[in-house]
Structures are given as structure tokens and as C-alpha cells.
């Protein structure tokens, strides 16, 4: 496909198709509606299946079923809808089956607002539902990156037999940008674990999340944690920006906000202040080392977390920085993105204070 202009939600949907996803189950909610709308037509063109379920709860359980049968499957929603999916997501993580969930975050708590927000960070990075589990969580900052990460998410879900999450916000869903959705060969994975009939085998595959004995449950949890440990070692994605400029401050921001920060950094540079940035592309596993390395730079006076939430990302920054430098927080509440000038002014105020 040539370079085209697409809305984030549509582009992510098309990227899912390019990644070989053939099953979508979902329920409408702004600001991600164009994604199911697009797939409601597209899935039939490629011989896939689209079901608008009666609720988010049934949609995620359809995902659970199709994934358990070995399909490449996804659902998408926005914050309140993703909350409804959490029980199913916990089951998918427990059953060790691959699936991809997209969350185009909107303002919360409760029904909140249709505007963009990042307030589901804890839910996305801490497991979200009940039990000790994690989701490999990608936070794209552009439509192109969202498409590329979508393909990656399906592959990683299959590779680890795990749940992957695309954590966008309303802006990523609604903005239009030029993209190229690259058609590539869909990677094949062994899915002999899938519950799709005995065939000529001597046993059935069973997808299960109930463990009666504590020994079995302990064994499952140890296996899950070992898998997450490998992900922490191998799956971190991060972008560093302007760190070789002897920055006085290093911003930490992800997704839409990181773009605003880059513009803020340009404005600060005009005033003679060098500022760098660490942008987590995976928010779980978090790029702890990259953040710590930036903080350890002699020129850096403080790390500055910029987030459209009340101080969620900042906790991961503090855990990474381990106290070697102060960590400041610029927090925007209520689902309105900050402007580059506001980010620049925050840094200027920090500088003035010292």
C-alpha cells in the first residue's frame, strides 16, 4: 500500500488486518469507534469475522474463546470499556493465550469524557484486572508507529502466548497522518496448545484458568512471572531524544504528550536551555535503565515527568531514577493536552526556582 492519509483508528484497524488478524469482537465507544466501524467492512473483505457484541464483557470473552482456538484476535475500546474487559483480560493472561487489546484512552474516572487522556496508565502497566499478571503494553506516539506496533503486538502475543495492549489516547485514534501499512508475511507460530478438536492426537487441548491445588497455582504463577521476567529483559522499547546535548533537564513522556514535549524542547532551545527526553515506547516493561542512565548524566539537574494523568507515570520514573536526581511532575488533568509553551514554562519555572 502506498503512503496514504489515515485516521489513527482506521490505520490501526488496517494494520491489524495486515498482521493477519481475522477476528474482531468489540462494542462501540468514542473515541475509538472508527476502528470497529472500519473492521466491520474490512473483515468480510479478507474472509475474517467481525462481531459487535452486546457489551465489552461479552466481547472480551469472545476474544478469549477465539484466542483459545488459536485465532489471531483483537478487541478495542476506550477507558470505561477497557475497565469492563479486565476480568476477561485476567483470564486470557492466566490461560496463556495470545490476544491484542487496544485502549484509546479518554478522560476518567467514571464515564469521564471523550477527550484524550493518559489516566489508565496504572491499569495498563500494573495488570489491570485481578491476580499477578502483566500485559506487554505499547504506547505509540504517531499513527505510523501505532501501525508498526500493532503488527509487533500480534507477533509478541503469539511468541509469549500473552496479552498485548496498545495504549493510545483519543488523539492517536482521531488524528490523521500519512502512513504506509507494509504488507509482510504473517509469522507462523506453533499453536498445538489451541483447543480446536482432538484431530489425530491422543488428547484434547484444554484452556483453563482454575487451579484447584495450591501447588498447581503456584507453578502457574511461577511460570507467568518467569515469562514476564524475560519480557522485562528483552522487550523494552524506548526512544531517547537530545540526550547528547548536555541537557539540564530530561523530560519523560509517552504517546501524544511526547510530541508536545518535543515542541516544548525546541522552544526551550531557542532560549538557550538544553532539554532531553526519554520516551517509553513500551510502558510495561518500563525502560528503567534508559531513564536511570539519563538521570545519571552530570549535566542533568532534574528529571521531569510530563503526563495527562495525576502522577502515575512519575511513579515508574521515581522507581527507575532511584533517588539519584530529583523527579518533578507536570501533570495535566481533565483530558485537555498541554501546549508546548506550557511544558516549556514549567521547565523555565523549575530553572528559576533553583
Amino acid at each position, binding site marked *: 500500500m502506498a503512503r496514504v492519509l489515515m485516521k489513527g483508528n*482506521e490505520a490501526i484497524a488496517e494494520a491489524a488486518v495486515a498482521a493477519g488478524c481475522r477476528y474482531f469482537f468489540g462494542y462501540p465507544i468514542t473515541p475509538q469507534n472508527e476502528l470497529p466501524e472500519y473492521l466491520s467492512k474490512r473483515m468480510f473483505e479478507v474472509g475474517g469475522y467481525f462481531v459487535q457484541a452486546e457489551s465489552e464483557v461479552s466481547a472480551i470473552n469472545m476474544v478469549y474463546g477465539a484466542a483459545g482456538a488459536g485465532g489471531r484476535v483483537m478487541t478495542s475500546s476506550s477507558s470505561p470499556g477497557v475497565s469492563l474487559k479486565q476480568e476477561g483480560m485476567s483470564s486470557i493472561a492466566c490461560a496463556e493465550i495470545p490476544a491484542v487489546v487496544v485502549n484509546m484512552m479518554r478522560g476518567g474516572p467514571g464515564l469521564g469524557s471523550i477527550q484524550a487522556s493518559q489516566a489508565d496508565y496504572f491499569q495498563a502497566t500494573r495488570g489491570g484486572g485481578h491476580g499477578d499478571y502483566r500485559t506487554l503494553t505499547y504506547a505509540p506516539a504517531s499513527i505510523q508507529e501505532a501501525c508498526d506496533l500493532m503488527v509487533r503486538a500480534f507477533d509478541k502475543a503469539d511468541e509469549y502466548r500473552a496479552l498485548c495492549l496498545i495504549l493510545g489516547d483519543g*488523539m492517536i485514534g482521531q*488524528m490523521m497522518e500519512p502512513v504506509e501499512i507494509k504488507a509482510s508475511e504473517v509469522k507462523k507460530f506453533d499453536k498445538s496448545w489451541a483447543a480446536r478438536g482432538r484431530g489425530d492426537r491422543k488428547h484434547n487441548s484444554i484452556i483453563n484458568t482454575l487451579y484447584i491445588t495450591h501447588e498447581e497455582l503456584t507453578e502457574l504463577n511461577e511460570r507467568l512471572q518467569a515469562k514476564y521476567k524475560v519480557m522485562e529483559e528483552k522487550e523494552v522499547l524506548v526512544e531517547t531524544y537530545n540526550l547528547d546535548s548536555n541537557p539540564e533537564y530530561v523530560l519523560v513522556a509517552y504517546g501524544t504528550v511526547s510530541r508536545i514535549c518535543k515542541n516544548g524542547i525546541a522552544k526551550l532551545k531557542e532560549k538557550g536551555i538544553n532539554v532531553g527526553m526519554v520516551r517509553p515506547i513500551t510502558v510495561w516493561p518500563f525502560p528503567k535503565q534508559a531513564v536511570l542512565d539519563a538521570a545519571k548524566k552530570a549535566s542533568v539537574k532534574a528529571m521531569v515527568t510530563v503526563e495527562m494523568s495525576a502522577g502515575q507515570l512519575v511513579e515508574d520514573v521515581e522507581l527507575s531514577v532511584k533517588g539519584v536526581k530529583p523527579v518533578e511532575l507536570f501533570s495535566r488533568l481533565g483530558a485537555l493536552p498541554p501546549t508546548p509553551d506550557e511544558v516549556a514554562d514549567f521547565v523555565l519555572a523549575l530553572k528559576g526556582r533553583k
Partner: protein
Amino acid sequence: MVKTEFDLLVGNYGSGKTEISLNLALDARAVGKKTVLVDLDIVNPYFRSSAHRKTLEEAGVHVIASPYANCTIDLPLVTAETVRIFTGEFDYAIVDVGGDPVGATALGRYRDNFDKVQGQVKANYIINACRPQTMNVPDIAAMFALIEGSSRLKMTHFINNTNLADETTGAILYEGQALVEDVARELGLPIRWITGRENVIAEFKALAEKAGRPYQGETRAITTRMRPEWFSY
């Protein structure tokens, strides 16, 4: 006798209706026309013309939009005030319509009103040949039929607004022009404008001159306002 001139902006998502609407409104005010812009979009929750209400009102453009547009909920509704555009109160009325067949149904509700001012209405169908659903004649014709059908109005003109946002070049617009001319021939409507940022229009003209081939429609440079500065990074 109502003397208002009407410009309806219709087309698929991402064709550029809203940018063109804002330009038409501000240009009309610059020559002193009493202008009204209706944000009739019932399908897009973000990036709507009424998000620029302040700029428009400061320029003297009256804005009619759902009271719930650009707030924190997504309600697909049309305000009763819309019928004011048919009272003759304004010299010029621009109607920015939602970008799919569902969006165009909002326009259909005013069919009887538009029938009464028929000769004064230009129904502009905007084409962006860089949108995946509208990259060839059959796809554009299919989308056109769906949108025109829902609008219950007859389109009168095409606008070639082929663009890839910040990556648009004159060559991209020029390539789009060939396609839009094919569509215009197929569907029997004239091309009214070829729109793009000033530098894009200049490149387009240079290319057309070099090719020595006349093009249909007039070029019209537009200023883009819908993309926040931080979209580029």
C-alpha cells in the same frame, strides 16, 4: 426574497471539508460578507470547525453548532438554530457536513429548505486522492453515490483537495488532479477548485505549466488551521 449564497462542503473523512470551510468563512469576512458557518458534523467528535469558534467569531463569522460540539460527550445532534441560514439574514452560508453517509443524512433534513434556494446553492464534493477509500474512480464514485444519496441533494461541483497533511507536495496534488478530472468526466460535474497550502499550489502550477496541459478548475490557496503545532515533531 432570500439572497444568501450557500456553499455546502461534503466528502469522505479526511477530504478537508473543515479546513476549506474555515478558509471560505474567513475569506468571505475579509471582503465584508455577512457570513455564517454551520458545523453540521454529527459523526466526528474531534477536530471540528466549531473548535475554531473563537477565531471565527473574532473575525465576525457567526457560528452555528451543536451546543455539545467539542465538549466532553459525543452527542450526534443538530441544533434548531440551523434553519436561520434560510431566513435571508446572511449574505453567505457555509455548511460543514460530517464525513460519511451517516454524516450526510444531517444535510438531508434540510432538503426542502435547500430546494427553495436552489440556484444559490453550490454543493461541493471534496476529494482527497490520498485517502485509502478514495484512490480510484470506482471507489470514489461508490462513496459519492452513498454520500450524495444520504444527503438527499444533488452535488454540483468537485474540489480537488488531494493531500498527505504536512507531507503534501505540488506533485501529490497534481497526481490527484488527474484522478479528480477522470471522476468529474465520469460523473458529469465540473471541478470548481484545486486547493492546497500556498507553496503546494505554486508547485502545482509550475508542474501544470511544465506539462503544458490545461487543468480544470481554479487553484485556491488555503491556510490550514486544524492541526495543532505539536502535530509536527
